[in-house]
């Protein structure tokens, strides 16, 4: 039966085109793949190939015709053996070659689909007895506990095994778990991160240690495009249970390339979870939760905190929920929101403010994605003032997000514009005095709060 050849769409954006030239005459035998015409699109002149075998019957749209809409019948193709005269009877209303009844739907105005509310984790339970340990020990204990618990968990990274960790986070793990599960990697972040993500897509649960998060930039394509998006792109078939961890932010006088906070980079990405522990309990509880989580989780640690001691629950099952902030200090006059090492800065600022009779509430975010907006907003509605504190840069930073959330959800409760305390908007310098000038300190927070009180 004769069929129609339609004006093809030849690019993602093409809606119409010009028939530049017909290359076949009525009566010509054409095979699938033969070039039958040239069409000018918005991008280029393209050759059009026949998609079926047959006999070229008749031209419906002559060459030189401009603005021919996609899907317009442009020629007639006859079946082998069919008389050319049959083409004369085919009109433009005849069935097109494929899908006679298919109309290309014009999308109607999309209904607005709201994001589902994020289910907040339960309140933190009381884990009882604690012991003072360093953040370093807490991280190691968390990995050791999860390596013991699940054979599918393994640690890989540069110097994690024989060297015992560039920052000694993996000390002792090679001895206990062997080289199958604690694996030294060459200096090849892009490659080994991709390899780890591939292994995770099969259901294994790698912990990828970056010697510092600065080097995760070499691998960021795999963290975002391969790890975070595959679940969605696969219609839910392929999750990626993987942890990316390492020290983040400034250390001490290591210069611009080794001193950057990646909080807002990773917190921006749907499909990732991002945690940023401050205390030893945060580190242990959040890292264990990250390893058990069926999603990719970025754990932003801090080198300066590694050696600091904090009380940490001794309970073998101790774990913290991802997505739940912690109020480290209660107050009624202003809310200070911080994460990682800046929690300490915020607490110091709160102590100074208390001397002047201002009671600051300090929220330790613990998780940056999903953000515990419930805890933030509840606090703001109590205090009517909010100041975010972060070590990273101000532009499009975590503080920008927090201030926006406060304005969007608690505008009527605010007595002062939300404020941000951030690292200065410049590459971190090396000189001791300059470096100190560039990073947030308690006085900056105190000053931001005083400004909110009109001082």
């Amino acid at each position: 039966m004769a069929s129609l050849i339609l004006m093809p769409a030849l690019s993602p954006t093409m809606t119409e085109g010009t028939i530049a030239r017909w290359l076949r005459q009525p009566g010509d035998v054409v095979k699938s793949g033969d070039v039958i015409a040239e069409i000018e699109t918005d991008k280029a002149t393209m050759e059009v190939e026949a998609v079926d075998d047959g006999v070229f019957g008749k031209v419906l749209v002559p060459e030189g015709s401009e603005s021919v809409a996609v899907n317009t019948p442009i020629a007639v193709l006859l079946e082998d053996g069919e008389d050319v005269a049959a083409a004369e009877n085919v009109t433009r209303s005849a069935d097109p070659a494929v899908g006679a009844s298919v109309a290309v739907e014009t999308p109607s105005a999309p209904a607005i689909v709201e994001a589902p509310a994020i289910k907040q984790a339960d309140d933190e339970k009381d884990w009882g007895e604690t012991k003072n340990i360093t953040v370093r020990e807490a991280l190691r204990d968390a990995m050791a506990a999860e390596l013991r618990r699940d054979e599918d968990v393994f640690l890989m990274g540069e110097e994690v095994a024989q060297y015992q960790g560039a920052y000694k986070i993996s000390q002792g793990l090679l001895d206990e778990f062997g080289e199958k599960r604690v694996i030294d990697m060459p200096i090849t972040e892009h490659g080994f991160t991709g390899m780890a993500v591939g292994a995770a897509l099969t259901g294994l649960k790698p912990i990828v240690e970056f010697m510092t998060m600065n080097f995760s930039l070499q691998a960021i394509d795999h963290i975002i495009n391969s790890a975070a998006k595959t679940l969605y792109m696969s219609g839910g078939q392929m999750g990626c249970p993987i942890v990316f961890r390492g020290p983040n932010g400034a250390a001490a006088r290591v210069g611009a390339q080794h001193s950057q906070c990646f909080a807002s980079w990773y917190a921006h990405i749907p499909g990732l979870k991002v945690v940023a522990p401050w205390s030893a309990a945060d580190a242990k509880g959040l890292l264990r939760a990250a390893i058990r989580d069926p999603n990719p989780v970025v754990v932003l640690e801090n080198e300066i905190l590694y050696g600091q001691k904090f009380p940490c629950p001794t309970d073998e099952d101790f774990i913290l929920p991802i997505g739940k902030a912690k109020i480290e200090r209660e107050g009624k006059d202003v809310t200070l929101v911080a994460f990682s090492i800046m929690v300490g800065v915020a607490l110091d600022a709160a102590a100074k403010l208390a001397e002047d009779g201002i009671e600051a509430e300090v929220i330790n975010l613990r998780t940056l994605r999903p953000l515990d907006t419930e805890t933030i907003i509840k606090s703001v509605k109590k205090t009517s003032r909010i100041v975010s504190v972060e070590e990273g840069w101000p532009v499009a930073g975590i503080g920008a997000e927090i201030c926006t959330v406060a304005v969007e959800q608690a505008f009527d409760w605010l007595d002062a514009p939300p404020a941000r305390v951030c690292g200065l908007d410049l590459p971190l310098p090396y000189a001791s005095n300059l470096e100190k000038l560039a990073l947030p300190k308690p006085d900056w927070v105190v000053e931001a709060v005083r400004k909110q009180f009109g001082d």
Partner: protein
Amino acid sequence: MGETTSASYRSNGPALSPETMKQAYKDMLLIRRFEEKAGQLYGMGLIGGFCHLYIGQEAVVAGIGLNMKQGDKSITSYRDHGQMLVAGMTPRGVMAELTGRAGGYSRGKGGSMHMFSREKEFYGGHGIVGAQVALGTGLAFANMYRGTDEVSIVYFGEGASAQGQVYESFNLAALHKLPCIYVIENNRYGMGTSIERASASKDLSRNAEPWGIASRKVDGMDIFAVHQAAQEAMEHCRSGKGPFLLEMETYRYRGHSMSDPAKYRDRAEVEEMRRTRDPIETLKAEMLRNGIEESIFKDIETEVKAVVADAVEFAQTCPEPDPSELWTDILVEA
């Protein structure tokens, strides 16, 4: 050191049984007809965005597919329809993903470039050139970690062979003796840039030599040669000898994607390849020489056309994804 043979790998006569030849013919024809139809649906506006057709390269995946067994994993770039069909994914599910429907492998959320099947161990469908090479190395790592004799087949183009992570992957695979077959589908053009203009290395089959990875250069238009090379590579990997590299010299008849006018090559070059090297015609000629009846080709053609027509019907009639699908599959519920 691994052995690299730079001579083209060609068979002397068929190493395949008549049944296997028929299977291979059917596999290749299915890809050819499926892709032609996909091109047609694209022209009608039923498939959107980027769409990269596999026409011309069929012998590569079909020949390797003959040697795959249950549990073997595969991964490729965005020119992925052929790999999926050979992995055993249904033409219906693939075509419905192309049309962005709920019945597609990714429920309409992936499209031509992003399809996966946990069941068939097909790991995508990746849009970042070269990324699948490191990911595929990870699939092989998982095989090793679990102690199986399964192999991972990692497809990439000669264009991707300029990416740094390919060589990071070679190093990792060789260091850990991973059961990974790297398949360079050298179709001569990375989008519009010919291999001569993109690679200082003129023999890609030797690109893994520094890591001691065994390799073969293969006539990728000849399924007998592909089969023979794949068999050798599979045995090598399954016996714990580490990775293997196959450079398949192949050719794509269509443009890089649907919107490529292909002005970077002569029409005559394409015609010459189609006329003298077509993988399906090459196999058919060999089958006829081996006394296989002419009539079976018509039967296979009829069967394949029916399968493709059914896929097209399904892909056009099944519904678009529900708007609520926007918010599913972002995170696994813990």
